């Protein structure tokens, strides 16, 4: 116990614990039907209605190792604006969604992000960053969603380029469903297991 005051703190990150089955109570209380004091849940709208950019809809499902949809998960999205800029000091570009209690689907109306500066002057292809928590997940899972109509940008993306098995890189590209709708299933396990990142 000696010397603690003499040197800079060398603490360990608080260990993660599962968000459990009732994460919606704490993070999406209106969705959870609690009523309560808040007009809307945090992350209900990622951008103001008049934010410039192309409107897109992203839908998705989280599937466990047996192919069963998770119906108690929470997905958080963090993304740049249409010009590829992250909010400096605000929450624009942040969204939160719950897996539907019956179908497991989540749905986000947002704007398509622009390309974002990457390391060493390289450019990152337009993408959403996702963070997933649920019962049975001990440490939140980081992943990314890329757009299928950005073939050239995706091919040059430095993060997709880190994935040695190119078949696995495809797990990060959404499926175009037309009219600006993209569908992105996340497989926690199995042959189609999505790539998760140690960021």
């Amino acid at each position: 116990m000696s010397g603690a005051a003499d040197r800079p703190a060398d603490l360990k990150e608080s260990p993660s614990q599962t968000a459990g089955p009732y994460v919606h109570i704490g993070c999406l209380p209106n969705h959870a039907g609690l009523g309560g004091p808040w007009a809307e849940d945090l992350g209900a709208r990622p951008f103001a209605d008049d934010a410039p950019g192309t409107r897109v809809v992203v839908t998705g499902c989280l599937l466990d190792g047996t192919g069963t949809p998770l119906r108690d998960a929470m997905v958080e999205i963090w993304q740049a604006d249409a010009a590829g800029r992250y909010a400096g000091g605000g929450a624009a570009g942040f969204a939160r969604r719950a897996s539907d209690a019956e179908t497991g689907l989540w749905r986000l109306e947002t704007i398509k992000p622009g390309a974002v500066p990457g390391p060493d002057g390289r450019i990152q292809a337009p993408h959403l960053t996702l963070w997933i928590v649920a019962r049975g997940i001990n440490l939140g899972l980081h992943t990314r969603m890329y757009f299928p109509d950005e073939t050239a940008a995706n091919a040059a993306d430095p993060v997709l380029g880190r994935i040695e098995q190119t078949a696995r890189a495809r797990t990060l590209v959404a499926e175009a469903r037309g009219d600006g709708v993209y569908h992105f299933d996340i497989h926690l396990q199995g042959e189609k297991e999505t790539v998760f990142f140690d960021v």
Partner: protein
Amino acid sequence: MSDAPFVARDRAWHPPALSPAYRTSVSRSPRHAPISFPQTLSETTGPVFGHDLPGPRDNDLIHNFAAPGAAAIGPRIIVHGRVTEETGRPVPGALLEVWQANAGGRYRHRKEGYIAPLDPNFGGCGRVITDADGAYHLRTVQPGAYPWPNGGNDWRPAHIHFSVFGSGFGQRLITQMYFEGDPLIWRCPILQAIPSEAAVKTLIATLDMRASVPMDCLAYRFDIVLRGRRQTLFENRMEGG
């Protein structure tokens, strides 16, 4: 605000994705190793929530869902502490969201079927933003232990769930706070998924009589540590020289 990358996460300190005694983790754990890459703005930045976000009663779970003049039932407690980075630097402006069962161990949730009754004056969630020193405080009732379907007779120790936003999305963390002296801590498969006893102990809040209010409520201290940002000493010297 710094956009410096975060220090690499010590994943061996956290519970592994596959922790078979916690049965739901078996089908929900990725089997491939996660892939690392040099952090970018997508990881080093994150949403910032202003001090005007929480309403005046958001950090008071005894009253924030109660009828006028009423209060939640259960042992009244203050929970307080600081949020720092691994370097010890305080994290001001961190949003903490909490949720918990009521004093009988029952959550207000449509899928919750435990026989303990709901408390009409208790919602079970709240939020608070840390001050300039990274400090926060909440008032609530001590949650009850509750049984859950895992093994034949598993009970969760009393706990409060914490969701924490630091200054970057790469710091995002959800964890649980436990109470000093609870014998269920050492029997819980979720908590015992954490590899080291030293790590488990950092999630156990300690009784803090100094922060208690005589004839009103006891207090527990719970400090939270987020990943630190790397220092860019070399670049600083370049600029300075």
